[in-house]
């Protein structure tokens, strides 16, 4: 046990003495979460929208005027039919269309109920979400000002997300950043630190020593497991304090799931270290084979449902995808294991698979 503690002590010395390592470990996560957070929170400026007024009465004219008067929204076009919307979106000229139903004012007085539909180009989900809340806020204001609710009259909103009907939550960036940061730090740093020992020849000395290979690997990984756990916790904390991203589900489950993901990333790191001959290769593999898919194919930034079928299949082997599903369920929906046990099983399976391959490769090398 003493030997093991000595080993971990030495590993921490390596980490604390390398400025680059320290930056990757502690600065990048904070910056990344803040940047992602503010990008998501970014205000919409001069969003161009169109109006499809099927009623053309006093009430709709008044509402349209209010929309146009709003600081960040600009009404640039009036459409005549519903089928024009798709073309406008595809031409990328407008981001949203506000649709007033036929006989709007009439319905409002007679039925005390009239429908407004907000159609949004959700190919940019964040923008669509923000624009949606802007527009609804303006309509709500109109409701209030005219006391429509008090007299039992109501404008009913209906939001339609074009291209991306089940829009994912704007809070996605916290789970997403967690998936990305944990993957980068854990897999990248652990693989580099193992490969470095190979490169400098110290691994040979360690292997000749009475330490068992398993002890060597565990000793190398333990510090990164600990630091990654601290990172995961800080991300959730920053997300919560700075951006108000909730943890609706159980903290225990959140910790357990994050730890499982860290284990998976560590086993990937070991696998990379058995393949890579030098630190550059380890970094290259970690960056392109691990980091990019985590960012692009996990559902973090781009919804998987909207990807080409081929990419959808590839996304199935991206570990972060499963972590994201599980952690979104825990943090945002507050659900328990029954809702994501399959994802946890996939992650466990990946840990077993990666460690299995690494052990096999390691044995071949020693033989």
């Amino acid at each position, binding site marked *: 046990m003493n*030997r093991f503690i000595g080993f971990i*002590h*030495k590993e921490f*010395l390596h980490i604390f003495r390398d400025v680059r390592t320290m930056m990757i470990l502690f600065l990048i996560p904070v910056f990344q979460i803040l940047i992602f957070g503010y990008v998501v929170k970014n205000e919409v400026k001069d969003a161009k929208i169109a109006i499809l007024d099927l009623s053309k009465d006093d009430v709709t004219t008044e509402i349209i005027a209010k929309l146009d008067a709003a600081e960040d929204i600009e009404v640039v076009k009036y459409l005549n039919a519903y089928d024009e919307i798709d073309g406008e979106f595809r031409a990328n000229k407008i981001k949203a269309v506000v649709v007033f139903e036929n006989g709007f004012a009439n319905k409002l007085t007679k039925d005390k109920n009239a429908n407004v539909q907000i159609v949004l180009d959700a190919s940019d989900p964040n923008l669509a979400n923000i624009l949606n809340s802007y527009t609804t806020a303006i309509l709500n204001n109109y409701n209030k000002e005219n006391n429509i609710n008090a007299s039992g009259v109501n404008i009913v909103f209906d939001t339609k997300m074009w291209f991306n009907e089940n829009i994912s939550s704007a809070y996605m960036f916290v789970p997403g950043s967690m998936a990305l940061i944990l993957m980068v730090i854990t897999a990248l740093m652990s693989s580099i630190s193992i490969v470095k020992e190979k490169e*400098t020849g110290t691994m040979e000395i360690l292997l000749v020593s009475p*330490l068992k290979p398993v002890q060597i690997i565990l000793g190398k990984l333990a510090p990164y497991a600990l630091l990654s756990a601290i990172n995961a916790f800080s991300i959730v904390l920053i997300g919560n304090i700075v951006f108000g991203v909730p943890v609706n589900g159980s903290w225990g489950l959140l910790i357990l799931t994050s730890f499982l993901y860290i284990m998976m990333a560590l086993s990937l790191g070991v696998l990379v270290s058995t393949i890579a001959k030098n630190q550059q290769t380890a970094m290259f593999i970690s960056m392109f084979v691990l980091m990019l898919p985590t960012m692009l194919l996990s559902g973090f930034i781009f919804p998987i449902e909207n990807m080409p079928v081929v990419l959808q299949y590839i996304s199935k082997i991206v570990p972060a995808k499963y972590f994201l599903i599980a952690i979104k369920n825990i943090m945002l929906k507050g659900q328990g294991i029954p809702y994501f046990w399959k994802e946890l099983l996939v992650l466990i399976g990946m840990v077993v698979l990666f460690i299995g391959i690494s052990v096999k490769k390691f044995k071949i090398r*020693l033989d």
Partner: protein
Amino acid sequence: MSDENIIVVENLVKKFGNFTANDNLSFEVKKSEIFGFLGANGAGKTTAIKILCGLSFPTSGNVMVAGFDAYKQRNLIKKNIGYMSQGFSLYDDLTVKENIEFYAGIYGLSRKLIKQRFNELVGKLGIHDLKNKFVKDLPLGWKQKIAFSVAIFHRPRVVFLDEPTSGVDPITRRQFWDLIYEAVESGITVFVTTHYMDEAEYCNRLSIMVDGKIEAMGTPAELKDKYKASNMDDVFVKLARKA
């Protein structure tokens, strides 16, 4: 030198698929002997050393190191040997003291013992000024001496030196051999590979490997006699030409 055999190798064969890296090697190394293990690159030296250090299994043959069997007692072998590689493998970002403490620690030495032996070593090498310096700031010669001191810090019965003087100037090499002699006097057996034939003369006995086989073995004087050569360089060239 005593009559006790510290390494016994009988008919050692190591094959990788169809390739025979070690073809029927047999030799003994006696306690407190400096045994030179020579051969051109690719002759099979590294493969043999790996087996002797418990890093890989022989395909067939008997191998005993420090009284332990290379098939079944690899862990006991590892505890009783030291190893120094040609890269003088130390951690650049640790100080001399931290390096020694770390390596001694993984051999299970107690803190008290580490402290005591470290103070002895500092006195012996005269490294009061160097002990708290980072290894990356040391000259190569010092790295080499410290790497060797690390390899024998846990007082192994045999120390394996894999080209321990490559890239070092002749004066430093000579100083290094003084350290080796000192270790031998304290009872440690030295198993050394080298490319420098002048160094081969410092060994008590030599074996020369060619294409996976031991082609010649004996004291430097015996070998020079046998091959009618004036120095070890000639012996080596004559043998290597046969390959």
